[in-house]
């Protein structure tokens, strides 16, 4: 925060105003009190209030995470169901082989490969940034401009790949297990059509654990977005965090971590509620079997 020419008096004065001279427990309790009010102080690097910075960067990250979560969920479920039902066959083997790559390759390698392929060789997609963003007052969005939409493709696909492969494997395992259960066999014995058995009876049951895992994973997506945002120079919170780490900008780091923790708790809370709505066995726990 200070330049080369700052005098010792000025340095001491700044330390005093930032409260760095107080004993640790005083500093810590002040941090707790302020954090509970949503105040995380001033960024050492950018000299602006941290909450302002976070709010400014939040839309970029949220848009990225939402799009990648959707890609991961929809593609993952579709491919998982396909590979679960058609256990043998070229396409299933191919998807599974690719999914193995998705699990084992680190995100930044995939991101760089994508940039090389689509931005450098083919030149059809931008390699960094959010493109043109439109300010809605409380929110800046990239969804409303062509360059913004183009810009989100590579980072969101990169970010979703790991989760997608995870969901493919989970859905596949669930489908295979459920297709062996007695109630599927009984449905077959009643002459229910194969399509209804697969997509109504089996899939609905198979998605219950997916919801739990997916919920937890959305939290992980936000955490993972640090790497993706850095690779694609995406102006989101993760990028802000990495810069803060390099600069030892503690107010930003603490604010970011508290925010991530809050998001995790909220998502798990929402998942628990969803679970309650979807699985009737949980819904009527108080109402025991009778009759």
């Amino acid at each position: 925060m200070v330049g080369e020419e700052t005098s010792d008096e000025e340095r001491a004065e700044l330390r005093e105003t930032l409260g760095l001279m107080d004993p640790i427990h005083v500093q810590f309790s002040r941090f707790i009190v302020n954090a509970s009010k949503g105040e995380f102080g001033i960024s050492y690097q950018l000299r602006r209030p941290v909450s302002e910075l976070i709010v400014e960067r939040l839309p970029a990250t949220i848009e990225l995470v939402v799009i990648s979560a959707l890609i991961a969920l929809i593609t993952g479920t579709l491919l998982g169901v396909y590979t679960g039902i058609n256990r043998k066959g070229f396409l299933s083997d191919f998807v599974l082989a690719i999914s193995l790559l998705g699990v084992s390759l680190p995100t930044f390698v995939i991101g760089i490969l994508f940039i090389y392929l689509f931005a450098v060789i083919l030149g059809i997609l931008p390699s960094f940034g959010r493109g043109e963003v439109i300010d809605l007052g409380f929110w800046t969005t990239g969804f409303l401009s062509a360059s913004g939409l183009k810009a989100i493709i590579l980072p969101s696909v990169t970010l979703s790949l790991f989760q997608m492969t995870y969901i493919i494997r989970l859905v596949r395992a669930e489908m295979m297990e459920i297709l062996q259960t007695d109630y599927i066999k009984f449905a077959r014995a009643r002459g229910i059509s194969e399509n209804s058995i697969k997509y109504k009876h089996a899939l609905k049951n198979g998605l219950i654990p997916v919801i739990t895992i997916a919920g937890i994973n959305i939290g992980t997506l936000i955490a993972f977005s640090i790497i993706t945002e850095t690779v694609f120079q995406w102006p989101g919170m993760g990028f802000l965090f990495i810069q803060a780490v390099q600069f030892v900008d503690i107010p930003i780091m603490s604010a970011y971590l508290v925010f991530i923790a809050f998001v995790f708790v909220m998502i798990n809370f929402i998942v628990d509620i969803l679970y309650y709505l979807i699985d009737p066995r949980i819904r009527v726990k108080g109402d025991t079997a009778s009759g």
Partner: protein
Amino acid sequence: MTFLKINNLSVDYQMRKEIVYAAKNVSIEVNKGEILGLVGESGSGKSTVGNAIINLIDEPGKVSSGSVILGDLNIYENPESIVKYRGNKIGLIFQDPQTSLNPILTVGEQLIETIQTHLKLSKEQAKNKSINLLREVGIKDAEARFDNYPHQFSGGMRQRVVISLALCCEPELLIADEPTTALDVSIQSQILELIKKLTKERNLAVILITHDMGVIAETADRVAVMKSGNLVEIGETKKILTNPHENYTKSLVSSVPPTNKKISRFVIVEKENNNNKENNIKILNRWSKKEIVKQDLVEVKNLNKSFDDNFFTENSKNSVMAVNDVSFEIKEGESFGLVGESGSGKSTIAKMIVNLFKPTSGDIFFDKVCITKIKQRSELMKFRKQIQMIFQDPYSSLNGRLKVKDIIAEPIILHNPSISSIDLNNYIYDLLESVELTQKSADRYPHEFSGGQRQRISIARALATQPRLLVCDEPTSALDVSIQAQILNLLKDLQEQLNLTILFISHDLPVVRQMCDRIGVLKDGKLCEVSNSEDLFLKPIHEYTKELLRLMPKIESIYN
């Protein structure tokens, strides 16, 4: 009139090296209005035949030859088209009502979907039909229960729902695969009555697949006996059960525990071995055999156990009294039986006696010492050594990663750490021989053994600490009758020679009658009555005991 004709049906499983026949050249005929019982032990191919009729064989099995003629339809002409007869002409009921219904669809949704698959009815008509069906199978308040999910029904009610689903499109053939095996006696008899009633009313042809000879005796008109994929014998139920032709049928019938008398040993027709008495001498030498003093070895006083639903709020409304003020005593050297239906608390009592559960209140005395109040671990170990348990499921009660000798060695070393390895090995071999297993078994893993052999390993493990009390929790209910007979014979021999005291827990009344000197009847955690076993069967006092005895399927009913 012959309605269903199965000709030379074969089902084979193409394995890597060989072809395994699950059913071979099976020919069966069933008439309308008739219940054909299909019996056999596990692996006999009885379920395979049931499933093959509608071509519902799991991969890699397939129907390799044969024809099935239903009325004047040859449904095997085109195997693909069998799909359209499923549910429509042929209904199927599976064993376990807990798993046969889709848990996240309501009963009504499942009924309507099935009806609309086969019959051209509007949703409203289908709903009315479903509600009528639910009433017909004996579900009270059918309109309200129509929108319930499967888990909201009890086991017996769920099986009724399953039956209504199997019957909703008015099939003419019903295949019931072990429909009552997972149910309690009282519910079993209701379900069997229902099947009998529906057979008459709807003039159904029924194939009842079961391993339970008592059920066959009370329900089936004719019986087909299967063994390793082959049809052994088929004929009138009475003839097959009283005067069987084939040796296999004879041995099967003789291994069924009779309900009307107590026999000293089961007759094993197929393999008669009388040399086990010599075998036991080896382990007898090691046994510090106590002279039987006719006194109480175990005394249970006012035992209570409740399971709280919620750990934090001790809400008495949610707590379930699993065991409610139970008192009894077991004399040294006797077999004491505890019978009851599921949820009656019989296993909970067993677990409290072996100190796996702590009672909520009440005392258990073993050899005049109150073992529920012992705090010190070393003191407790002395009693653990003397009380051993044999569990119901021989598959999950042995550690699959340990060799048999390590499984048996574990309790020996625990109670006698200084034993030399030669001594230990000899002791393990002696134990294995006592339970009629070869010495070679010691170096193998549990999965290489059949269910009956595994239960023998469990017994050897329990005997390893030279216990005085053996707690057997449904030791044979996962086994076939012929294996059950062998295990029960073994337990009897061991008890006689080693002066063991046995607490025998079972839901199976005929088995308890054969095994026990005295019996206690449990219902909802309360002890209804305790008496000598013959008195209990001949002159039951408590209403519930009378009810149980009346409902118990009796193989002897065929003689009347």
